């Protein structure tokens, strides 16, 4: 508990020590940590691997971007629509001029999409790899759709060129600091919510599904319901993270939500340690920090590193860094009590 308090204090104190640029980076990483938490709920705790979280993240981001774009255009048609020959604002863009509507959509749309996919798969016991491949196909078609409908979505370039949020300039350091605090608060709220879910009876059933779905079914639970709920919730978290991401980065494009970013999200969780919330969040921050440090100066080396990381984590560190730390701790304790029960991660 003390550790969590210290982490929270550190996050709130960070603006005093970091430059504006670094703070902006940290804020972006914290937004990624929210996705990682959601992903950990379904992968680490329920044993369902989704390679489609980039899409949920992206839809949230687009919802916010649409609001920001309309705000920046100030009543005129957004620039890319004019380039594509649209004369007036499409109907589905219009309500996004309201901030509240955009935020609601940024949560509801990813959740609904996840519910749709979950409804048609989990009920039929389509799971494991089959589900994973379907989520990946979802990524492909969504990104092609976004690229293809350039007049409505900005195509490959995505949506960018924002200036204000709720009247405040996005470029000013004060707004940036404010947005950072909002991100920290949301992260803490999501973390607490995840803790609550994981510790509840519901969370116990999730873990039971991970370890033996059929046994859970025979006991009398309906795993599909649990899987749908947690998948939807996890997508909603990703949507929230996407909205925050756009506020910090100022652009969203299909390449930020495609196959590669989606699978990298899984790697954050895997490196940090699936099945532990703090591990997933730390993994997201750590890996993205490393990426921003190294990928620009050594782009080739970074790809090699990333590829190697996937292999190493799966083969040698199935529980990630948290698992490694746990093992070291356990090793020390062993000398005192030999009969410590070891927790083996089930093969998935």
């Amino acid at each position, binding site marked *: 508990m003390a550790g969590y308090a210290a982490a929270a204090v550190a996050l709130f104190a960070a603006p005093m020590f970091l430059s504006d640029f670094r703070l902006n980076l940290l804020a972006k990483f914290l937004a990624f940590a929210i996705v990682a938490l959601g992903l950990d709920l379904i992968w680490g705790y329920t044993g369902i*691997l989704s390679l489609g979280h980039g899409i949920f993240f992206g839809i949230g981001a687009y919802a916010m971007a649409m609001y920001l774009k309309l705000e920046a255009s100030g009543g005129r048609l957004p620039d890319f629509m004019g380039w594509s020959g649209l004369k007036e604002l499409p109907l589905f863009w219009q309500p996004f001029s309201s901030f509240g509507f955009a935020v609601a959509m940024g949560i509801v749309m990813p959740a609904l999409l996840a519910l749709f*996919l979950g409804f*048609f*798969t989990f009920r*039929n*016991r*389509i799971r*494991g*790899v*089959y589900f*994973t*491949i*379907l989520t*990946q*196909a*979802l990524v*492909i*078609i969504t990104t*092609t*759709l976004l*690229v*293809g*409908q350039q007049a409505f979505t900005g195509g490959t370039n995505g949506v960018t060129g924002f200036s204000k949020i709720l009247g405040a300039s996005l470029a000013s350091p004060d707004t940036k600091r404010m947005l950072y605090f909002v991100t920290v608060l949301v992260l803490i709220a999501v973390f607490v919510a995840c803790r609550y879910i994981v510790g509840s009876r519901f969370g116990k059933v999730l873990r039971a599904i991970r370890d033996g779905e*059929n046994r859970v079914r025979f006991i009398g639970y309906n795993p599909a319901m649990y899987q749908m709920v947690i998948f939807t919730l996890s997508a909603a978290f990703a949507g929230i993270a996407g909205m925050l991401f756009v506020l910090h980065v100022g652009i969203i494009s299909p390449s930020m939500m495609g*196959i590669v970013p989606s*699978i990298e999200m*899984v*790697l954050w969780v*895997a490196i940090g340690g699936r099945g532990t919330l703090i591990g997933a969040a730390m993994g997201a921050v750590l890996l993205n920090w490393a990426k921003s440090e190294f990928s620009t100066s050594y782009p*080739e080396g970074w*790809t*090699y590193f*990333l*590829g*190697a*990381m*996937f*292999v190493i*984590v*799966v*083969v040698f560190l*199935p529980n990630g860094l948290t698992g490694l730390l746990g093992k070291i701790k356990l090793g020390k304790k062993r000398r005192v009590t030999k009969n410590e029960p070891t927790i083996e991660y089930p*093969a*998935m």
Partner: protein
Amino acid sequence: MDVFILQLFNGISVSSILLLIALGLAITFGLMKVINMAHGELIMIGAYSTYLTQNLFHAYMPSSWFNWYFVISIPASFLIAFLFGLLLEVSLIRHLYGRPLDSLLATWGVGLLLQQLARSVFGAPNVAVTSPSWLNGGMRILSDVVLPYKRLFIVGLVAACLIAMYFYIYRSLEGRRMRAVMQNRDMAACLGVSTRRVDAMTFAIGSGIAGIAGCALTLMGPIGPSLGTYYIVDAFMVVVLGGVGKLVGTVLGALGIGVFNTMFEYWTNASLGKVLVFLCIVAFLQWRPSGFVAMRTRSLD
């Protein structure tokens, strides 16, 4: 009518390439419950093998022989991809049996490594492979319908691979062992089948076929380090749609996706066509959750 025939032919042509790619995937998944995300990179390896064969012919053979390099490049790309597959199986895949989701992540990493390796060796830009001149032009079957020889050749190549696979799986000793392991690994092992050998061979052959697919793709356009990634998800959809364990499932899956994709794309546009195909697949899985063909089994998981 003309348009319909042309679209149908295009659909079959797309299906045949998908089939070539998905064959290896379906077999390895059915046999070892391993998802090989690096399969796309094995395609890329096959394509670059063809490129290298072409360059070797350019450099060392009389120019009158150049047209026949493609005949050599097919077995060459099979062999090189086969060896890469064998290496991959022995060094990594072997440790991931029965862990499909983990194997998916690890092999994705391998794919990244191989892609970057190709970028370091051959450079990031695409390279072009000159098709042999005897594949230029096309066959005129109706006044307006011309079927390009290249695509016909690919369909023929795929048919040949399919027949070879059929004989290997259903008519050879190795194939019988493979089917035994697929049905019941423990029992097969008890009866003296070396499951490790079967796994390694099967994985390597699947990789080799991916290599041939890469070779065929050089006919369709320039090739680059990320060649395989365009096809890999579609190929996995073929496996999901077709089911695992039987060749006929994979064939049906590939035909279904290839033909419907072409048709829908013709009727709507490229992006909407993909969405419709995806919705069709999800709808189909409501009816048959394990694909066209499923192996009958009494075990629950």
